[in-house]
């Protein structure tokens, strides 16, 4: 079985979260999933450009989706919550409003493209459940993550707003638990499972966001988690790279390793932490993983 997707990496995968690019490609290869990176994709706007120009925000994402449509695939796959939200928002707006779609297409026509609405925007997490199937995933597991206690940190933009995302109930999603359990890991219950990481306002609301980061690390720590796993590189960056800054606001030790979803999957597929670039995190995740797992 080979699944083929157009692939939209998003800006962080080219620098701060390059380990997500590395681990996504490794895991896709191991699972037999073909990812065709869009040639000439742009930043999705990262929840900022619509504050300046809503129509422009829709237009640049219409272009991204149109690039995928020209590849003749049925789905455009991302590994970032916010990229997924921005692309799906643009798509929903145009699919619901013929006049807007026509207007966007006037601009796209000048760029030699057309938005048709034939490609669906999905996230790796959803694709694994919807297209690949948990049973098939389980068959690929060579190193079950037995004994590893993971805290699934969803991030807002993979579930909300539900009229745009809509894959599962935003008040009680289960997709992360289903994947983690298929890999053999144990999911811990913790208060901040559906919390906001605060990344999108880390500049104007630095003080508040650092407090949130500390709470988001402490909650799974107190629940006994070995690491947080997240389907979003922005949540990962906020919780990992800013963790030393957040620590300054707390007396208790908040140390909590934060890994990307494809890294968790890769470990269960028998790929080594180095090949998954787990050594690129600010908070070293490898000792916590080594304590519980026989790593490749």
């Amino acid at each position, binding site marked *: 079985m080979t699944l083929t997707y157009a692939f939209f990496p998003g*800006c*962080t995968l080219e*620098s*701060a*979260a*390059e380990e997500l690019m590395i681990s996504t490609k490794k895991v896709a290869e191991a699972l037999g999933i073909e990812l065709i990176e869009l*040639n*000439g*994709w*742009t*930043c999705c*706007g*990262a*929840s*900022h*450009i619509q*504050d*300046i*120009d*809503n*129509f*422009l925000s829709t*237009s*640049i994402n219409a*272009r991204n989706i149109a690039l995928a449509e020209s590849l003749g695939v049925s789905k455009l796959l991302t590994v970032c919550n916010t990229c997924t*939200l921005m692309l799906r928002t643009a798509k929903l707006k145009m699919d619901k409003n013929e006049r807007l779609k026509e*207007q966007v297409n*006037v*601009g796209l026509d*000048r*760029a*030699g*493209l057309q938005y048709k609405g034939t490609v669906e925007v999905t996230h790796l997490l959803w694709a694994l459940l919807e297209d690949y199937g948990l049973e098939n995933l389980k068959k690929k597991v060579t190193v079950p993550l037995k004994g590893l206690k993971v805290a699934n940190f969803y991030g*807002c*933009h993979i579930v*909300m*707003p*539900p009229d745009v995302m809509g894959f599962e*109930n*935003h*008040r*009680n999603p289960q997709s992360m638990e289903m994947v983690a359990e298929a890999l053999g890991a144990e999911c811990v219950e913790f208060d901040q499972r*559906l*919390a*906001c990481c*605060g990344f*999108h*306002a880390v*500049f*104007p*609301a630095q003080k*508040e*966001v650092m*407090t*949130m980061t500390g709470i988001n690390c402490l909650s799974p720590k107190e629940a006994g988690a070995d690491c947080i796993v997240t389907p979003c590189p922005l949540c990962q960056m906020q919780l990992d*790279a800013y963790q*030393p800054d957040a620590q300054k606001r707390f007396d208790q030790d908040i140390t909590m390793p934060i890994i990307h979803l494809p890294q968790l999957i890769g470990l269960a597929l028998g790929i080594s932490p180095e090949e998954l670039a787990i050594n*690129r*995190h*600010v908070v070293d995740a490898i000792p916590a993983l080594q304590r519980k797992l026989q790593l490749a």
Partner: protein
Amino acid sequence: MEMMTVKIKRFDGRNSYYQKYEVPYEKGKTILWLLTTIREEQDPTLNFTSACRHAICGSCAVQINGNAFLACNTPLDDVLETYKTMNLTFEPLKNFEVIKDLVIVWEPKMEKMTKVKPWIIPGEEGSKEIGFLQSEEDFQQIAAPTDCILCGVCASECNQLAVNQDGYLEPFILNKAYRYIVDTRDGAPEQHLKPVLENDLWKCLHCMQCVSQCPKTIPLTDQIAFLRSATMAMGELDNQGAKHAYAFHDDVKNKGRLNETMLPIKTDGLVQTALTKIPFALRMVKKGKINPLHMPKQISGIQEVRKLYEYAEEVKS
């Protein structure tokens, strides 16, 4: 008979504790039915507010299993299905002061709302004699924001308010400001907008909680984007929020993608970045997450992307 276990957070003015009730399950009821049944059949001392039972008065919002709901228009079966449980935990709305049990205090919120002047400041186009007329299209602008019933669900779920109650405005207050700013009969939108900007408008985390939970499906986050746009149109560009947004906007126009290395400098300026972000930058460089020497190349098709920018400008004008 199938039973539900309902835990309710009680507060008697001094102490707070959880009280447990066992209630027989009935199909096709509302959350408000559940609360009313407990009060009428088991515990007359339980306090909660409700009145219209039709999602109009906005008085019956509560937290259930971690989320805010309007009790009267929320089917009990939906909640049981959402959490896959027969155990429900009720708490008062978050980010409000509590008077007793599930009853919260609204006065400080209403006082806070006066900051945005929640009334029409008449423009010069109308008068007592000729009235203040609106076209249907103009009226449609205020149709969604006037759906707000001040139930407090958005405020209860707001992640910025949770850590910044004094500085930030409740989403329903932002909605109220928006409602007067876009009202064509209002002659002084900047008088509603300035206090919005001065009360941490750019601290909205874009978490989407308010818009996802609003029982009246008011597009609250689109409104926040509009409010930000409006402050920038008013010339308020010299702040972190606007500079941060423009960093993305300009990077996409110039190269197609974000330059993460330059983002802090574009947002905070060189001096502030040097003062505050050096430890962060060093740890990022050490792990290979930032390469200061790496400059993103222009994407293939950048000329076409710029045509989209030109076209968006045409559409605006």
